[in-house]
C-alpha cells in the first residue's frame, strides 16, 4: 500500500468533560474521495478542524505523506497543502472573486493582479469551474461563492481538500455539477474528504466511507460494498425504519389565505414579491427553495414580525367563523384576535428560545403574561416542562438546565413541544430538523403529522427535498421572493422541484 496522503492515528479531542473525538484513526490516499459520515454532533467537523489547524488534538498524531505533522494554525495547514472549505463561507462580500482568492497570501514576490486572473482561469479550465473572477461576492449565488472557496484552496496549492457539508446549500442540479468537479480533482490525484450526513450523496461520490458515532470511530467501508441501510445502522447504532407515514388529508378547509403580499427591506430590496397561497387545515404545506429565497420573511410576515407593504393575510377562525386580516398586526394583537398561531423559527436559540434561560423560563416565554398580578407564576410552566421532557424524551439533567447546554435535537424538542402545547390551528416550522440526528428528525416529522391529523394547518419549510416529498401534501417552491410553483407532493420529482427552485421569472401554479 502506498503512503497515505493524510493519516490520523488515535486522535482524541475533549472540550471540558465532553469528548468530541475519541481515539480516531483513518486515512485518505491520493486520488481518492473519502466520505466522513456521521450524525450531527458525532464529531466530524471537530476532527476536520484539527486537520485544518483550527483546533489542536489532545492526543494522537497526524501524518502527512508519511511524515508526522503538527498543525498549530490554519497557516500551517496551508504549508502542508491542506485546504478546508467550510460550511459557512469565509469571504469578503465587497471584494471580487479573484481578490478573495489571493487574500492573505504573501509569497514575497511582487503582486500582480493579472497573474492572479491568469492562474484562476487556469484552475477553472483544468477542473471545469465556471466563474467570473471579476464578479463581486455579494452579487454571487451560494453555489458561486462555494466555487470561489474551492478555487481559493486550489490556488494555494492544496493537495488535500476537506469539504464540510458542501451540498447543504445547493440545489440537486448544482450538487451534480459539484460532484463532477470533485471527480476531476480526484482523477488529478487530490485527496478529498467530504463531510456529509446525506446517504445517497455518500454512495454516489465517494470511494470509501468512514463512519463516526458520538465522537467514536465506527469503521471504514468501500462504498461499492455497502448500502444505505448498512450505513444508517453504523451511523445510528441500531436498526431504524426510515419511513414517514403520510396519511391522506381529511376535512380540509382554507385556514390561512395569503394574497399578493409584498415586502421590502429597509434598504428597499424586494424580499417577497406578490406571494399568494393557501394553507389548509389537515394538510402539510411544504415550502422549498434555495436558502435565503424569502422563506424566513414569509413566515415572519405571517407571524407579525415583518412589515408588509401590500397584500393581505386572511385567517379563517374555525371557532367563530370570523375572517381576520393579520396584516400589520403585532404578535400580541394576533393572539388577542384568538388566532392560535405557533411558529418554530429557524434560529432556535436566537429567536425561538433564550439559550441562557432554563427550560421552565423558556416555557414561560409564551405564557408569562397569563394571570393577574405583577409576579411570575412558575408552577404551570414547570409542569409543562416536565410533561415535554417525558413526552418527547428530552435528554437533560433537569428543568433548571440552560437550554443552550442541551444538544441540538433536545433544544428543538423543547421548542416544538412548547409551540405544540399551545394547541395551534396554524403551525409554522422553519427547518425544524436542521442539525438533528436521524431519530430526533423522525420524532419531529411524527409530531408534525400528528398535528396535521388533528386538523392543524402545518407549514413546513425544509431543505431536504426527499423529506419534503415524503412528508408534505403540497409543496410550494419559492425563488427570489416569488412563488415559482405549487406542486402536488405525491406526484412530483426532485428534479421538477429543483428546476422550480432556480426559476427566476414569475410562476404559475400547476396543481
Amino acid at each position, binding site marked *: 500500500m502506498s503512503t497515505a496522503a493524510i493519516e490520523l*492515528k*488515535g*486522535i*482524541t479531542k475533549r*472540550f*471540558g*468533560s*465532553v469528548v468530541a473525538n475519541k*481515539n480516531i*484513526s483513518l486515512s485518505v490516499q491520493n486520488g481518492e474521495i473519502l466520505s466522513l459520515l456521521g450524525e450531527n454532533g458525532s464529531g466530524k467537523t471537530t476532527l476536520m478542524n484539527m486537520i485544518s489547524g483550527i483546533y*489542536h*488534538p*489532545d*492526543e*494522537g*498524531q497526524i501524518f*502527512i*505523506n*508519511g*511524515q508526522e*505533522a*503538527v*498543525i*498549530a494554525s490554519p497557516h*500551517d495547514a496551508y*504549508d*502542508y497543502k491542506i485546504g478546508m472549505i467550510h460550511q459557512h463561507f469565509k469571504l469578503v462580500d465587497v471584494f471580487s472573486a479573484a481578490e478573495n482568492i489571493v487574500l492573505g497570501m504573501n509569497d514575497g514576490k511582487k503582486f500582480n493582479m493579472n497573474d492572479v486572473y491568469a492562474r484562476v482561469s487556469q484552475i477553472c479550465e483544468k477542473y471545469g469551474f465556471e466563474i467570473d473572477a471579476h464578479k463581486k461576492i455579494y452579487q454571487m449565488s451560494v453555489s458561486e461563492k462555494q466555487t470561489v472557496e474551492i478555487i481559493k484552496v486550489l490556488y494555494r496549492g492544496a493537495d488535500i481538500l476537506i469539504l464540510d457539508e458542501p451540498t447543504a446549500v445547493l440545489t440537486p442540479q448544482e450538487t451534480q455539477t459539484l460532484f463532477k468537479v470533485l471527480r476531476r480533482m480526484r482523477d488529478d490525484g487530490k485527496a478529498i474528504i467530504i463531510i456529509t450526513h446525506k446517504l445517497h450523496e455518500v454512495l454516489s461520490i465517494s470511494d470509501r466511507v468512514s463512519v463516526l458515532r458520538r465522537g467514536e470511530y465506527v469503521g471504514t467501508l468501500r462504498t461499492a460494498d455497502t448500502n444505505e441501510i448498512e450505513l444508517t445502522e453504523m451511523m445510528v447504532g441500531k436498526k431504524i425504519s426510515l419511513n414517514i407515514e403520510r396519511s391522506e388529508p381529511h376535512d380540509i378547509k382554507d385556514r390561512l389565505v395569503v394574497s399578493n403580499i409584498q415586502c421590502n427591506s429597509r434598504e428597499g430590496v424586494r424580499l417577497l414579491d406578490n406571494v399568494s397561497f393557501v394553507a389548509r387545515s389537515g394538510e402539510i404545506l411544504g415550502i422549498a427553495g434555495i436558502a435565503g429565497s424569502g422563506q424566513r420573511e414569509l413566515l415572519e410576515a405571517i*407571524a*407579525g*414580525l415583518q412589515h408588509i407593504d401590500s397584500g393581505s393575510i386572511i385567517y379563517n377562525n374555525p371557532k367563530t367563523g370570523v375572517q381576520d386580516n393579520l396584516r400589520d398586526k*403585532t*404578535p*400580541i394583537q394576533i*393572539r388577542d384576535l384568538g388566532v392560535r398561531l405557533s*411558529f418554530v*423559527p429557524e*434560529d432556535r*436559540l*436566537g*429567536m*425561538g*428560545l*433564550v*439559550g*441562557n*434561560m432554563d427550560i421552565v*423560563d423558556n416555557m*414561560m*416565554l*409564551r405564557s*408569562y*403574561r397569563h394571570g393577574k398580578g*405583577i*409576579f*411570575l407564576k412558575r408552577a404551570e410552566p414547570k409542569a409543562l416542562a416536565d410533561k415535554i421532557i417525558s413526552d418527547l424524551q428530552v435528554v437533560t439533567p433537569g428543568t433548571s438546565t440552560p437550554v443552550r447546554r442541551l444538544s441540538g435535537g433536545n433544544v428543538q424538542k423543547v421548542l416544538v413541544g412548547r409551540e405544540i402545547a399551545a394547541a395551534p390551528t396554524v403551525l409554522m416550522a422553519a427547518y425544524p430538523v436542521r442539525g438533528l440526528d436521524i431519530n430526533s428528525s423522525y420524532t419531529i416529522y411524527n409530531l408534525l403529522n400528528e398535528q396535521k391529523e388533528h386538523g392543524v394547518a402545518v407549514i413546513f419549510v425544509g431543505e431536504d427535498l426527499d423529506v419534503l416529498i415524503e412528508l408534505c401534501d403540497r409543496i410550494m417552491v419559492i425563488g427570489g421572493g416569488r412563488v415559482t410553483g405549487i406542486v402536488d407532493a405525491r406526484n412530483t420529482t426532485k428534479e421538477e422541484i429543483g428546476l422550480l427552485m432556480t426559476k427566476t421569472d414569475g410562476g404559475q401554479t400547476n396543481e
Partner: protein
Amino acid sequence: MNEKIKHTEPLIRISKRDDLVWWKSWLVRVIAVVLALVLCSVIIILITGYNPIQVYLAMIRGSFGTNRKLWIMLQNLAMLLCISLAVTPAFKMRFWNIGAEGQVLVGGLATAAVMFYAKDSLPPFIMIITMLAASLAAGIIWAMIPAFFKAKWNTNETLFTLMMNYVATQLVSFFIMIWVPSGSSVMGIINQDSQAGWLPEIFGQKYLLNILIVAAVTIAMFIYLKYSKQGYEISVVGESENTAKYIGINVKKVILRTMGLSGAICGLAGFLLVSGTNHTITTTTAGGMGFTAIMVSWLGKFNAVIMVLTSFIIVFLQRGAGEIATKFNLNQSVADILTGIILFFIIGCEFFVNYKINFRTGHKEGK
C-alpha cells in the same frame, strides 16, 4: 513533503471548562486574594519598608477601627450599592448605561434646588416628599433621553449616556453660580440652621435611614429582577431582542421603562447624597461612584444580593487605602497601587474559574 516545514505544538493552550464545583471556584478566588496580598506585601516592603502585616491591620481598622468608621463604611457601602442597583436592570437588558454619574447628579441637583428655594416654608414631611419626587423625576428624565433615542433611532447609548454626564456636571456648576452670588462657586451647607429638608437621624444615627432605604431597594430589586413579569421581560430583551419580538414584547417600551427605573434609582441616590448625607451639592457629589457601580454590578453578576458583597469589597479597599495613606504618612498613590493589585487579582481569577490552561505535554501517542 517539504522537509523545511517543522511546526511545534504551541506551548500554552487555553480551553473552556465546564462549571467547577462551587467550592473549587471559591478556592480559586481565595487563592487569588492570598496571592494578591503576598504581592502587595513585597511591594510594601520594597517601596516603604513597613511591615506588611501592620499595613493590612491598618486597612482593616480603616473600615472597622471605630464606631464612627464603621458607620461611614456602611454609608459609603449603601450609596455605592444604591447606584449599582440602579444600573443593574439596564445592564441586564444589555443597555450600557454609563451615565449613572450624571443621573445621580441631576437627582441631587433637584433635591438641592427644592431645599434652596423652599427653605423652611414647607412642613417637613411635605418637604421631603417634594424633594424625593423632584429628584426621582430628574433622574428619570436624564435616563429616558438616551433611552428614547435608542428606542427610536437606535443611537449608541454608551456615548449618549456618557455625554449626558458632562451636561449634568455643567448644569450643577451653572446652578451653583446662580445660587452663590459671591462667586466662590462653593455651595456650602444648605439650610444650615433650620435643617429643612435634611433626612432625620433615627436612633441617633445620622446614616441609618439611608442604609435602611438602600437595604429595602436591594431586596425589592432582587425580587423585581427574579420574580416579576417586568424583570423577566428585561432578561429576555437583554438575552435576545429577536426572541423578545418573536413573543410579542414591545422592546421599545421595555427599554424606556427599564431606563426610567434605572434613572429613578439614580435620582434616589442623588437625593440620599444631598438630603441624607452632604446637605450640599458640588460637581463631584457622585464622586465617580456612577462608574464604580458598573464594576460592582458586573462583579456581582447582576445579582442584587451578591452585589452587597462586591460593593463591600470595593468600599473596604477604598477606606483601607485612605487609612494607610494617613496612618503611615504614605503617598495616596501607594494605597491606590495596593487596591489596584487586589482588584486585579479578584477580577482576573474569574478567568481561571472559566478556563483551563494546558501546557505542552511533549510527544503524545495515541493508542
